[in-house]
Protein backbone atom coordinates (compact mmCIF):
# COMPACT_ATOMS: atom_id res chain seq x y z
CA UNK A 1 0.00 0.00 0.00
CA UNK A 2 1.33 3.42 -1.02
CA UNK A 3 1.63 5.82 1.90
CA UNK A 4 2.36 9.51 2.44
CA UNK A 5 2.81 8.96 6.14
CA UNK A 6 4.09 12.01 8.02
CA UNK A 7 4.51 14.07 4.83
CA UNK A 8 1.42 16.22 5.35
CA UNK A 9 0.06 18.13 8.32
CA UNK A 10 -3.06 19.79 9.62
CA UNK A 11 -1.78 23.26 10.49
CA UNK A 12 -4.90 25.29 11.23
CA UNK A 13 -8.43 24.67 12.53
CA UNK A 14 -11.42 26.91 13.11
CA UNK A 15 -15.17 26.94 13.49
CA UNK A 16 -18.13 29.22 14.10
CA UNK A 17 -20.61 29.02 16.95
CA UNK A 18 -22.99 26.02 16.98
CA UNK A 19 -26.52 27.40 17.07
CA UNK A 20 -30.14 27.11 16.03
CA UNK A 21 -30.13 30.67 14.72
CA UNK A 22 -27.07 31.66 12.73
CA UNK A 23 -29.03 34.46 11.08
CA UNK A 24 -26.54 34.60 8.22
CA UNK A 25 -25.57 32.84 5.03
CA UNK A 26 -23.39 29.77 4.68
CA UNK A 27 -21.01 32.09 2.79
CA UNK A 28 -20.64 34.37 5.80
CA UNK A 29 -20.12 31.42 8.14
CA UNK A 30 -17.57 29.78 5.84
CA UNK A 31 -15.56 33.00 5.72
CA UNK A 32 -15.49 33.22 9.52
CA UNK A 33 -14.42 29.58 9.95
CA UNK A 34 -11.66 29.88 7.34
CA UNK A 35 -10.41 33.23 8.76
CA UNK A 36 -10.24 31.62 12.19
CA UNK A 37 -8.28 28.65 10.85
CA UNK A 38 -5.87 30.96 8.99
CA UNK A 39 -5.27 32.90 12.17
CA UNK A 40 -4.81 29.68 14.11
CA UNK A 41 -2.16 28.52 11.62
CA UNK A 42 -0.46 31.89 11.33
CA UNK A 43 -1.06 31.91 7.59
CA UNK A 44 -1.84 34.91 5.39
CA UNK A 45 -4.67 34.49 2.87
CA UNK A 46 -2.13 34.60 0.05
CA UNK A 47 -0.49 31.50 1.54
CA UNK A 48 -3.58 29.43 0.71
CA UNK A 49 -4.10 28.48 -2.93
CA UNK A 50 -6.36 25.45 -2.73
CA UNK A 51 -9.87 24.94 -1.41
CA UNK A 52 -12.16 21.95 -0.95
CA UNK A 53 -15.68 21.75 0.45
CA UNK A 54 -18.52 19.26 0.66
CA UNK A 55 -22.23 19.83 0.61
CA UNK A 56 -25.63 18.61 -0.53
CA UNK A 57 -26.89 21.69 -2.37
CA UNK A 58 -27.08 23.37 1.00
CA UNK A 59 -23.94 25.50 1.06
CA UNK A 60 -21.75 28.03 -0.72
CA UNK A 61 -19.05 26.84 -3.15
CA UNK A 62 -15.34 27.63 -2.83
CA UNK A 63 -15.15 30.20 -5.68
CA UNK A 64 -17.72 32.37 -3.87
CA UNK A 65 -15.88 32.15 -0.58
CA UNK A 66 -12.25 32.58 -1.66
CA UNK A 67 -12.58 36.21 -2.86
CA UNK A 68 -14.05 37.23 0.51
CA UNK A 69 -10.77 36.10 2.04
CA UNK A 70 -8.40 37.54 -0.55
CA UNK A 71 -7.49 34.06 -1.72
CA UNK A 72 -6.62 33.41 -5.37
CA UNK A 73 -7.16 29.74 -6.11
CA UNK A 74 -4.89 27.39 -8.02
CA UNK A 75 -7.20 24.48 -7.20
CA UNK A 76 -10.71 24.01 -5.87
CA UNK A 77 -13.42 21.41 -5.82
CA UNK A 78 -16.82 21.31 -4.14
CA UNK A 79 -18.00 17.75 -3.78
CA UNK A 80 -21.35 16.21 -2.94
CA UNK A 81 -21.32 14.56 0.43
CA UNK A 82 -21.90 14.67 4.14
CA UNK A 83 -20.40 12.34 6.71
CA UNK A 84 -17.11 10.66 5.72
CA UNK A 85 -16.16 13.61 3.49
CA UNK A 86 -13.72 15.29 5.89
CA UNK A 87 -11.22 12.44 5.98
CA UNK A 88 -11.60 11.78 2.24
CA UNK A 89 -10.95 15.43 1.40
CA UNK A 90 -7.85 15.54 3.59
CA UNK A 91 -6.53 12.71 1.42
CA UNK A 92 -7.53 14.57 -1.76
CA UNK A 93 -5.83 17.74 -0.52
CA UNK A 94 -2.63 15.77 0.06
CA UNK A 95 -2.95 14.33 -3.46
CA UNK A 96 -3.48 17.76 -5.02
CA UNK A 97 -0.41 19.14 -3.27
CA UNK A 98 1.61 16.02 -4.09
CA UNK A 99 0.65 16.44 -7.76
CA UNK A 100 1.97 19.98 -7.73
CA UNK A 101 -1.47 21.52 -8.31
CA UNK A 102 -1.30 23.76 -5.26
CA UNK A 103 0.58 24.19 -1.98
CA UNK A 104 -1.86 24.70 0.88
CA UNK A 105 -5.54 23.70 0.99
CA UNK A 106 -8.38 25.00 3.17
CA UNK A 107 -11.18 22.44 3.61
CA UNK A 108 -14.53 23.71 4.84
CA UNK A 109 -18.08 22.65 5.57
CA UNK A 110 -20.68 25.37 6.09
CA UNK A 111 -24.30 24.53 6.78
CA UNK A 112 -27.43 26.05 8.22
CA UNK A 113 -28.37 22.55 9.25
CA UNK A 114 -31.15 23.72 11.51
CA UNK A 115 -32.60 26.88 10.02
CA UNK A 116 -32.33 26.10 6.29
CA UNK A 117 -31.68 22.50 5.23
CA UNK A 118 -32.38 19.84 7.81
CA UNK A 119 -30.59 16.61 7.10
CA UNK A 120 -33.50 14.48 8.24
CA UNK A 121 -35.28 15.31 5.01
CA UNK A 122 -38.00 17.45 6.51
CA UNK A 123 -39.34 20.44 4.59
CA UNK A 124 -38.40 20.80 0.93
CA UNK A 125 -36.40 17.60 0.87
CA UNK A 126 -39.39 15.47 1.95
CA UNK A 127 -41.36 16.82 -1.02
CA UNK A 128 -38.77 15.91 -3.68
CA UNK A 129 -40.10 13.26 -6.12
CA UNK A 130 -38.83 9.69 -5.72
CA UNK A 131 -37.15 8.21 -8.79
CA UNK A 132 -34.41 5.74 -9.61
CA UNK A 133 -32.99 3.96 -6.60
CA UNK A 134 -35.15 6.08 -4.27
CA UNK A 135 -38.04 3.87 -5.40
CA UNK A 136 -36.58 0.97 -3.42
CA UNK A 137 -37.05 2.84 -0.13
CA UNK A 138 -38.92 6.13 -0.07
CA UNK A 139 -42.36 4.80 -1.09
CA UNK A 140 -42.23 2.74 2.11
CA UNK A 141 -41.64 5.74 4.36
CA UNK A 142 -37.87 5.31 4.55
CA UNK A 143 -36.23 8.69 3.94
CA UNK A 144 -34.15 10.07 6.79
CA UNK A 145 -30.73 8.92 7.95
CA UNK A 146 -32.28 7.31 11.01
CA UNK A 147 -34.78 5.43 8.88
CA UNK A 148 -32.03 4.40 6.46
CA UNK A 149 -29.74 3.07 9.18
CA UNK A 150 -32.20 1.52 11.66
CA UNK A 151 -32.39 -1.84 9.86
CA UNK A 152 -28.63 -2.20 10.39
CA UNK A 153 -28.85 -1.26 14.07
CA UNK A 154 -31.77 -3.62 14.74
CA UNK A 155 -30.01 -6.53 13.09
CA UNK A 156 -26.92 -5.89 15.22
CA UNK A 157 -29.11 -6.29 18.32
CA UNK A 158 -30.42 -9.57 16.90
CA UNK A 159 -27.02 -10.91 15.86
CA UNK A 160 -25.09 -9.97 19.00
CA UNK A 161 -27.55 -9.27 21.81
CA UNK A 162 -26.66 -5.59 21.90
CA UNK A 163 -29.04 -3.71 24.21
CA UNK A 164 -30.52 -0.21 24.10
CA UNK A 165 -28.97 0.49 27.51
CA UNK A 166 -25.47 -0.41 26.30
CA UNK A 167 -25.79 1.85 23.29
CA UNK A 168 -27.15 4.70 25.43
CA UNK A 169 -23.74 4.87 27.11
CA UNK A 170 -22.38 6.51 23.96
CA UNK A 171 -24.68 9.49 24.54
CA UNK A 172 -23.87 9.47 28.25
CA UNK A 173 -20.11 9.58 27.59
CA UNK A 174 -20.35 12.25 24.93
CA UNK A 175 -22.60 14.38 27.14
CA UNK A 176 -19.98 14.26 29.89
CA UNK A 177 -17.39 15.48 27.42
CA UNK A 178 -19.69 18.23 26.15
CA UNK A 179 -20.13 19.51 29.69
CA UNK A 180 -16.42 20.38 29.55
CA UNK A 181 -16.73 22.06 26.16
CA UNK A 182 -17.72 25.74 26.37
CA UNK A 183 -18.75 25.78 22.70
CA UNK A 184 -20.98 22.68 22.88
CA UNK A 185 -24.60 23.31 21.93
CA UNK A 186 -25.85 20.82 24.58
CA UNK A 187 -23.75 20.91 27.72
CA UNK A 188 -26.03 19.05 30.12
CA UNK A 189 -24.97 15.59 31.25
CA UNK A 190 -27.53 12.85 30.68
CA UNK A 191 -28.03 9.35 32.11
CA UNK A 192 -28.85 6.01 30.49
CA UNK A 193 -32.39 6.42 31.82
CA UNK A 194 -32.66 9.83 30.17
CA UNK A 195 -31.80 8.23 26.82
CA UNK A 196 -34.14 5.26 27.27
CA UNK A 197 -36.91 7.56 28.50
CA UNK A 198 -36.71 9.96 25.57
CA UNK A 199 -39.36 9.57 22.88
CA UNK A 200 -39.02 7.10 20.05
CA UNK A 201 -38.01 8.42 16.63
CA UNK A 202 -37.58 5.20 14.67
CA UNK A 203 -37.13 2.06 16.73
CA UNK A 204 -34.50 1.17 17.92
CA UNK A 205 -33.55 4.90 18.03
CA UNK A 206 -34.79 7.18 20.81
CA UNK A 207 -34.55 10.95 20.42
CA UNK A 208 -31.34 11.02 22.48
CA UNK A 209 -29.79 8.29 20.31
CA UNK A 210 -29.88 10.86 17.49
CA UNK A 211 -27.44 13.71 16.92
CA UNK A 212 -28.17 17.41 17.02
CA UNK A 213 -28.98 19.58 14.04
CA UNK A 214 -27.16 22.91 14.09
CA UNK A 215 -26.07 25.93 12.04
CA UNK A 216 -22.29 26.24 11.80
CA UNK A 217 -19.16 26.17 9.67
CA UNK A 218 -15.84 24.40 10.20
CA UNK A 219 -12.44 24.57 8.53
CA UNK A 220 -9.09 22.85 8.62
CA UNK A 221 -5.95 23.61 6.63
CA UNK A 222 -3.63 21.03 5.07
CA UNK A 223 -0.08 21.61 3.88
CA UNK A 224 3.22 19.77 3.57
CA UNK A 225 5.21 18.85 6.66
CA UNK A 226 8.04 21.00 5.32
CA UNK A 227 5.89 24.16 5.30
CA UNK A 228 4.19 23.19 8.54
CA UNK A 229 7.43 23.47 10.49
CA UNK A 230 7.51 27.26 10.01
CA UNK A 231 3.93 27.89 11.14
CA UNK A 232 2.41 28.98 14.43
CA UNK A 233 1.14 25.67 15.82
CA UNK A 234 2.78 22.40 16.66
CA UNK A 235 2.22 20.38 13.45
CA UNK A 236 -0.17 17.45 13.53
CA UNK A 237 0.95 14.78 11.08
CA UNK A 238 -1.30 12.61 8.90
CA UNK A 239 -0.17 9.01 9.28
CA UNK A 240 -2.88 7.36 7.22
CA UNK A 241 -6.12 8.15 5.47
CA UNK A 242 -8.91 6.17 3.80
CA UNK A 243 -11.76 7.87 1.95
CA UNK A 244 -15.30 6.66 1.31
CA UNK A 245 -14.39 3.00 1.42
CA UNK A 246 -17.50 1.01 0.60
CA UNK A 247 -19.11 -2.38 1.08
CA UNK A 248 -20.07 -4.42 -1.99
CA UNK A 249 -23.39 -3.50 -3.62
CA UNK A 250 -23.17 0.01 -2.18
CA UNK A 251 -26.23 0.99 -4.24
CA UNK A 252 -28.39 -1.34 -2.13
CA UNK A 253 -26.05 -2.62 0.51
CA UNK A 254 -28.53 -4.95 2.21
CA UNK A 255 -28.00 -7.31 -0.71
CA UNK A 256 -24.56 -8.19 0.63
CA UNK A 257 -24.48 -8.94 4.31
CA UNK A 258 -23.85 -9.36 7.05
CA UNK A 259 -25.98 -6.25 7.26
CA UNK A 260 -24.67 -5.55 10.76
CA UNK A 261 -21.21 -5.12 9.22
CA UNK A 262 -20.19 -1.57 8.23
CA UNK A 263 -17.59 -0.12 5.85
CA UNK A 264 -14.84 0.16 8.46
CA UNK A 265 -14.40 -3.57 7.97
CA UNK A 266 -12.75 -2.70 4.66
CA UNK A 267 -11.28 0.73 5.51
CA UNK A 268 -9.16 -0.65 8.36
CA UNK A 269 -7.07 -2.63 5.88
CA UNK A 270 -6.13 0.59 4.09
CA UNK A 271 -5.58 3.02 6.93
CA UNK A 272 -3.70 0.93 9.50
CA UNK A 273 -1.03 -0.41 7.09
CA UNK A 274 -0.45 3.15 5.81
CA UNK A 275 0.09 4.39 9.34
CA UNK A 276 2.12 1.36 10.39
CA UNK A 277 0.17 1.05 13.64
CA UNK A 278 -2.72 -0.98 15.03
CA UNK A 279 -5.80 -0.06 17.04
CA UNK A 280 -3.97 -0.69 20.32
CA UNK A 281 -1.68 2.26 19.52
CA UNK A 282 -4.54 4.77 19.28
CA UNK A 283 -5.02 7.07 22.30
CA UNK A 284 -8.22 8.87 21.26
CA UNK A 285 -10.96 8.01 18.76
CA UNK A 286 -13.28 10.42 17.03
CA UNK A 287 -16.17 8.35 15.77
CA UNK A 288 -18.92 9.81 13.61
CA UNK A 289 -21.89 9.83 15.96
CA UNK A 290 -24.87 10.68 13.83
CA UNK A 291 -26.42 8.12 16.15
CA UNK A 292 -25.21 6.32 19.25
CA UNK A 293 -25.09 3.11 17.22
CA UNK A 294 -22.71 4.47 14.58
CA UNK A 295 -19.95 4.79 17.17
CA UNK A 296 -20.57 1.26 18.44
CA UNK A 297 -20.51 -0.31 14.98
CA UNK A 298 -17.35 1.50 13.94
CA UNK A 299 -15.22 0.74 16.99
CA UNK A 300 -15.96 -2.93 16.33
CA UNK A 301 -15.01 -2.88 12.66
CA UNK A 302 -11.75 -1.03 13.25
CA UNK A 303 -10.73 -3.64 15.80
CA UNK A 304 -10.91 -1.66 19.05
CA UNK A 305 -12.90 -4.64 20.28
CA UNK A 306 -14.13 -7.88 18.75
CA UNK A 307 -17.08 -7.86 16.38
CA UNK A 308 -20.21 -8.08 18.46
CA UNK A 309 -18.58 -6.73 21.62
CA UNK A 310 -19.21 -3.07 20.85
CA UNK A 311 -22.02 -2.94 23.39
CA UNK A 312 -19.61 -3.87 26.14
CA UNK A 313 -16.88 -1.58 24.80
CA UNK A 314 -19.00 1.57 24.75
CA UNK A 315 -20.56 0.90 28.17
CA UNK A 316 -17.33 -0.04 29.97
CA UNK A 317 -15.93 3.45 30.54
CA UNK A 318 -13.22 2.98 27.93
CA UNK A 319 -14.67 5.74 25.74
CA UNK A 320 -14.99 8.34 28.53
CA UNK A 321 -12.40 10.97 29.44
CA UNK A 322 -10.18 9.28 32.00
CA UNK A 323 -10.84 5.94 30.28
CA UNK A 324 -8.39 3.95 28.20
CA UNK A 325 -9.39 5.45 24.86
CA UNK A 326 -11.79 8.41 25.03
CA UNK A 327 -14.10 8.92 22.06
CA UNK A 328 -15.38 12.29 20.83
CA UNK A 329 -13.94 14.36 23.65
CA UNK A 330 -15.80 17.42 22.29
CA UNK A 331 -19.18 15.78 22.77
CA UNK A 332 -19.39 15.02 19.07
CA UNK A 333 -22.46 15.32 16.92
CA UNK A 334 -24.63 14.00 19.72
CA UNK A 335 -23.84 16.98 21.97
CA UNK A 336 -21.41 19.56 20.58
CA UNK A 337 -23.06 20.23 17.23
CA UNK A 338 -23.56 18.74 13.80
CA UNK A 339 -20.99 19.51 11.15
CA UNK A 340 -20.72 16.33 9.10
CA UNK A 341 -17.56 14.99 10.68
CA UNK A 342 -15.11 17.86 10.53
CA UNK A 343 -15.57 18.92 14.14
CA UNK A 344 -14.27 15.58 15.40
CA UNK A 345 -11.09 15.97 13.35
CA UNK A 346 -10.65 19.52 14.67
CA UNK A 347 -11.03 18.19 18.21
CA UNK A 348 -8.34 15.56 17.69
CA UNK A 349 -5.96 18.14 16.21
CA UNK A 350 -6.35 20.24 19.36
CA UNK A 351 -5.93 17.17 21.56
CA UNK A 352 -2.62 16.31 19.86
CA UNK A 353 -1.42 19.90 20.25
CA UNK A 354 -2.35 19.78 23.94
CA UNK A 355 -4.37 22.96 23.59
CA UNK A 356 -7.98 21.82 23.97
CA UNK A 357 -10.28 24.82 24.46
CA UNK A 358 -11.78 23.76 27.78
CA UNK A 359 -12.31 25.86 30.91
CA UNK A 360 -8.78 25.48 32.26
CA UNK A 361 -7.48 29.05 32.72
CA UNK A 362 -4.32 28.51 30.67
CA UNK A 363 -5.78 26.00 28.20
CA UNK A 364 -4.48 27.77 25.11
CA UNK A 365 -0.95 27.65 26.54
CA UNK A 366 -1.30 23.91 26.96
CA UNK A 367 -1.67 23.99 30.75
CA UNK A 368 -4.43 21.67 31.95
CA UNK A 369 -5.69 20.22 35.23
CA UNK A 370 -6.85 16.83 33.85
CA UNK A 371 -9.76 17.12 36.27
CA UNK A 372 -12.58 15.55 34.29
CA UNK A 373 -15.43 16.54 36.58
CA UNK A 374 -18.31 18.57 35.19
CA UNK A 375 -17.36 21.89 33.65
CA UNK A 376 -13.63 21.31 34.00
CA UNK A 377 -10.85 19.88 31.84
CA UNK A 378 -11.21 17.76 28.72
CA UNK A 379 -7.59 17.58 27.59
CA UNK A 380 -6.28 14.02 27.44
CA UNK A 381 -2.81 13.74 29.00
CA UNK A 382 -0.09 13.61 26.34
CA UNK A 383 -1.94 11.82 23.54
CA UNK A 384 0.32 10.71 20.72
CA UNK A 385 -2.02 9.16 18.17
CA UNK A 386 -5.67 9.82 17.33
CA UNK A 387 -8.02 8.18 14.88
CA UNK A 388 -11.17 9.46 13.20
CA UNK A 389 -13.82 7.01 12.05
CA UNK A 390 -15.93 8.75 9.42
CA UNK A 391 -19.38 7.49 8.48
CA UNK A 392 -21.55 8.26 5.48
CA UNK A 393 -23.85 5.27 5.89
CA UNK A 394 -23.46 1.63 6.89
CA UNK A 395 -21.90 0.85 3.51
CA UNK A 396 -19.51 3.82 3.22
CA UNK A 397 -16.90 5.17 5.63
CA UNK A 398 -13.60 7.02 5.88
CA UNK A 399 -10.74 6.96 8.36
CA UNK A 400 -7.87 9.20 9.42
CA UNK A 401 -4.93 8.54 11.72
CA UNK A 402 -2.93 11.51 13.03
CA UNK A 403 0.01 11.92 15.38
CA UNK A 404 1.66 14.83 17.11
Amino acid at each position, binding site marked *: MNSLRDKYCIVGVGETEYSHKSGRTTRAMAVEAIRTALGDAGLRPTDVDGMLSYQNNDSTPSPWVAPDLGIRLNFYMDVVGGGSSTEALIGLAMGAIEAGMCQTVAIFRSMNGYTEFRIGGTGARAAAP*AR*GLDLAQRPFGMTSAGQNFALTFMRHMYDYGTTSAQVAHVKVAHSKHASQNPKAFRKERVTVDDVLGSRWI*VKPLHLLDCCLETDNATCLIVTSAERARDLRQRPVYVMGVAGRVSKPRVDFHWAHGPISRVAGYYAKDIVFPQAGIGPEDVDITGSYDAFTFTTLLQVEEYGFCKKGEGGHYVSSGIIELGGKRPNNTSGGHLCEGYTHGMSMVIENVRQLRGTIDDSCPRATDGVHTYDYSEGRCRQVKDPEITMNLGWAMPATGSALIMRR
Partner: protein
Amino acid sequence: MPQPVQHRGLTLLVPDNDSEWAEYFAHARAHRLVMRRCSACGLMRYPPTHACPWCTDLGWTWQEVSGRGTIHSYEVVVHAIQPGFRDVTPYPVVLVELDEQRGVPTPDEALRIVANLVKPDGRMEDEKAVAIGKRVRVVFEDLADHLALPQFTLTDERPESRVWRLPE
Protein backbone atom coordinates in the same frame (compact mmCIF):
# COMPACT_ATOMS: atom_id res chain seq x y z
CA MET B 1 -43.88 9.44 -19.93
CA PRO B 2 -46.51 7.79 -17.71
CA GLN B 3 -48.26 10.03 -15.23
CA PRO B 4 -46.39 10.48 -11.96
CA VAL B 5 -48.08 8.55 -9.14
CA GLN B 6 -49.06 10.21 -5.88
CA HIS B 7 -48.54 8.03 -2.83
CA ARG B 8 -48.91 9.39 0.71
CA GLY B 9 -47.95 12.87 -0.44
CA LEU B 10 -44.92 11.56 -2.31
CA THR B 11 -44.54 11.77 -6.10
CA LEU B 12 -43.26 8.54 -7.64
CA LEU B 13 -41.58 9.19 -11.00
CA VAL B 14 -40.88 6.28 -13.33
CA PRO B 15 -39.85 7.76 -16.68
CA ASP B 16 -40.08 5.70 -19.89
CA ASN B 17 -36.31 5.45 -20.14
CA ASP B 18 -36.16 3.70 -16.75
CA SER B 19 -37.08 0.24 -18.01
CA GLU B 20 -35.76 -1.37 -14.83
CA TRP B 21 -38.40 0.19 -12.59
CA ALA B 22 -41.15 0.73 -15.17
CA GLU B 23 -41.32 -2.97 -15.99
CA TYR B 24 -40.80 -4.06 -12.39
CA PHE B 25 -43.75 -1.99 -11.19
CA ALA B 26 -45.88 -3.04 -14.18
CA HIS B 27 -45.33 -6.68 -13.23
CA ALA B 28 -46.22 -5.78 -9.66
CA ARG B 29 -49.45 -4.23 -10.95
CA ALA B 30 -50.22 -7.65 -12.46
CA HIS B 31 -49.47 -9.01 -8.98
CA ARG B 32 -46.24 -10.72 -9.91
CA LEU B 33 -43.04 -10.18 -7.91
CA VAL B 34 -40.20 -10.37 -10.42
CA MET B 35 -36.43 -10.18 -10.28
CA ARG B 36 -33.99 -9.57 -13.09
CA ARG B 37 -32.11 -12.77 -13.90
CA CYS B 38 -28.74 -12.59 -15.63
CA SER B 39 -28.70 -14.36 -19.00
CA ALA B 40 -25.06 -15.31 -18.58
CA CYS B 41 -24.62 -16.51 -14.98
CA GLY B 42 -28.27 -17.10 -14.09
CA LEU B 43 -28.23 -15.17 -10.83
CA MET B 44 -31.19 -12.97 -9.90
CA ARG B 45 -30.71 -9.49 -8.49
CA TYR B 46 -32.65 -6.81 -6.61
CA PRO B 47 -33.04 -3.88 -7.17
CA PRO B 48 -33.67 -4.36 -10.90
CA THR B 49 -30.40 -2.93 -12.16
CA HIS B 50 -28.91 -2.54 -15.63
CA ALA B 51 -25.98 -4.96 -15.35
CA CYS B 52 -25.31 -8.13 -13.39
CA PRO B 53 -23.47 -7.19 -10.17
CA TRP B 54 -21.55 -10.48 -10.24
CA CYS B 55 -20.52 -11.07 -13.87
CA THR B 56 -21.43 -7.58 -15.29
CA ASP B 57 -23.26 -9.15 -18.25
CA LEU B 58 -25.90 -6.88 -19.78
CA GLY B 59 -28.34 -9.63 -20.80
CA TRP B 60 -31.33 -10.36 -18.57
CA THR B 61 -34.83 -11.76 -18.33
CA TRP B 62 -37.61 -11.18 -15.81
CA GLN B 63 -38.07 -14.11 -13.43
CA GLU B 64 -41.09 -14.42 -11.18
CA VAL B 65 -40.34 -15.46 -7.59
CA SER B 66 -42.60 -16.98 -4.94
CA GLY B 67 -42.81 -13.81 -2.87
CA ARG B 68 -42.21 -15.85 0.28
CA GLY B 69 -39.49 -14.98 2.69
CA THR B 70 -38.33 -14.16 6.21
CA ILE B 71 -38.03 -10.83 8.02
CA HIS B 72 -34.26 -10.24 8.13
CA SER B 73 -34.52 -6.92 9.99
CA TYR B 74 -37.11 -4.27 10.71
CA GLU B 75 -37.68 -0.81 12.14
CA VAL B 76 -40.75 0.98 13.44
CA VAL B 77 -41.15 4.60 12.41
CA VAL B 78 -42.77 6.54 15.23
CA HIS B 79 -41.80 10.05 14.11
CA ALA B 80 -42.65 10.24 10.40
CA ILE B 81 -40.53 12.51 8.22
CA GLN B 82 -42.76 12.41 5.14
CA PRO B 83 -45.99 14.25 5.99
CA GLY B 84 -48.14 11.65 4.21
CA PHE B 85 -46.98 8.94 6.58
CA ARG B 86 -47.91 10.78 9.77
CA ASP B 87 -51.41 9.33 9.94
CA VAL B 88 -50.13 5.73 9.79
CA THR B 89 -47.51 5.97 12.55
CA PRO B 90 -46.17 3.88 14.13
CA TYR B 91 -45.52 1.95 10.92
CA PRO B 92 -43.15 -0.97 10.34
CA VAL B 93 -40.52 -1.12 7.61
CA VAL B 94 -39.14 -4.60 7.00
CA LEU B 95 -36.14 -6.00 5.18
CA VAL B 96 -37.39 -9.29 3.73
CA GLU B 97 -35.01 -12.03 2.66
CA LEU B 98 -36.67 -13.97 -0.15
CA ASP B 99 -36.59 -17.78 -0.17
CA GLU B 100 -34.96 -17.94 -3.58
CA GLN B 101 -31.19 -17.66 -3.89
CA ARG B 102 -30.40 -17.40 -0.15
CA GLY B 103 -26.68 -17.56 0.58
CA VAL B 104 -25.84 -17.41 -3.13
CA PRO B 105 -23.31 -16.77 -4.62
CA THR B 106 -21.65 -16.24 -1.22
CA PRO B 107 -23.02 -17.02 2.24
CA ASP B 108 -23.52 -13.31 2.98
CA GLU B 109 -25.67 -12.62 -0.07
CA ALA B 110 -29.40 -12.94 -0.66
CA LEU B 111 -32.32 -11.30 -2.45
CA ARG B 112 -33.44 -8.76 0.13
CA ILE B 113 -36.17 -6.20 -0.37
CA VAL B 114 -37.47 -3.23 1.64
CA ALA B 115 -41.23 -2.87 2.14
CA ASN B 116 -43.85 -2.18 4.76
CA LEU B 117 -45.31 -5.01 6.81
CA VAL B 118 -49.04 -4.75 6.22
CA LYS B 119 -52.17 -6.64 7.26
CA PRO B 120 -53.83 -8.77 4.57
CA ASP B 121 -56.21 -5.85 3.88
CA GLY B 122 -53.27 -3.53 3.22
CA ARG B 123 -53.32 -1.44 6.40
CA MET B 124 -50.04 -1.12 8.31
CA GLU B 125 -49.42 -4.10 10.62
CA ASP B 126 -49.41 -3.55 14.39
CA GLU B 127 -45.88 -3.03 15.60
CA LYS B 128 -46.25 -5.74 18.24
CA ALA B 129 -46.65 -8.30 15.44
CA VAL B 130 -43.31 -7.47 13.81
CA ALA B 131 -40.24 -9.57 14.59
CA ILE B 132 -37.04 -10.71 12.95
CA GLY B 133 -37.37 -14.33 11.83
CA LYS B 134 -41.11 -14.29 11.12
CA ARG B 135 -42.34 -15.63 7.78
CA VAL B 136 -44.01 -13.35 5.25
CA ARG B 137 -45.54 -13.38 1.77
CA VAL B 138 -45.88 -10.65 -0.80
CA VAL B 139 -49.10 -8.68 -1.33
CA PHE B 140 -49.58 -5.81 -3.75
CA GLU B 141 -50.71 -2.25 -3.11
CA ASP B 142 -52.24 -1.01 -6.37
CA LEU B 143 -51.50 2.69 -6.86
CA ALA B 144 -52.19 3.27 -10.58
CA ASP B 145 -52.91 1.40 -13.81
CA HIS B 146 -49.21 0.95 -14.38
CA LEU B 147 -47.81 0.71 -10.88
CA ALA B 148 -48.23 -1.28 -7.69
CA LEU B 149 -45.98 -1.55 -4.66
CA PRO B 150 -44.95 -5.01 -3.46
CA GLN B 151 -45.64 -5.15 0.29
CA PHE B 152 -45.41 -8.06 2.72
CA THR B 153 -47.78 -9.65 5.18
CA LEU B 154 -47.30 -12.27 7.89
CA THR B 155 -48.04 -15.94 7.23
CA ASP B 156 -48.67 -18.75 9.70
CA GLU B 157 -45.67 -20.72 8.45
CA ARG B 158 -43.34 -21.93 11.15
CA PRO B 159 -40.23 -19.76 11.43
CA GLU B 160 -37.05 -21.59 10.56
CA SER B 161 -34.81 -19.30 12.61
CA ARG B 162 -34.91 -17.52 15.96
CA VAL B 163 -37.73 -14.99 16.32
CA TRP B 164 -36.82 -11.74 18.08
CA ARG B 165 -38.24 -8.29 18.50
CA LEU B 166 -36.98 -5.22 20.34
CA PRO B 167 -37.91 -5.54 24.04
CA GLU B 168 -40.62 -3.10 25.20
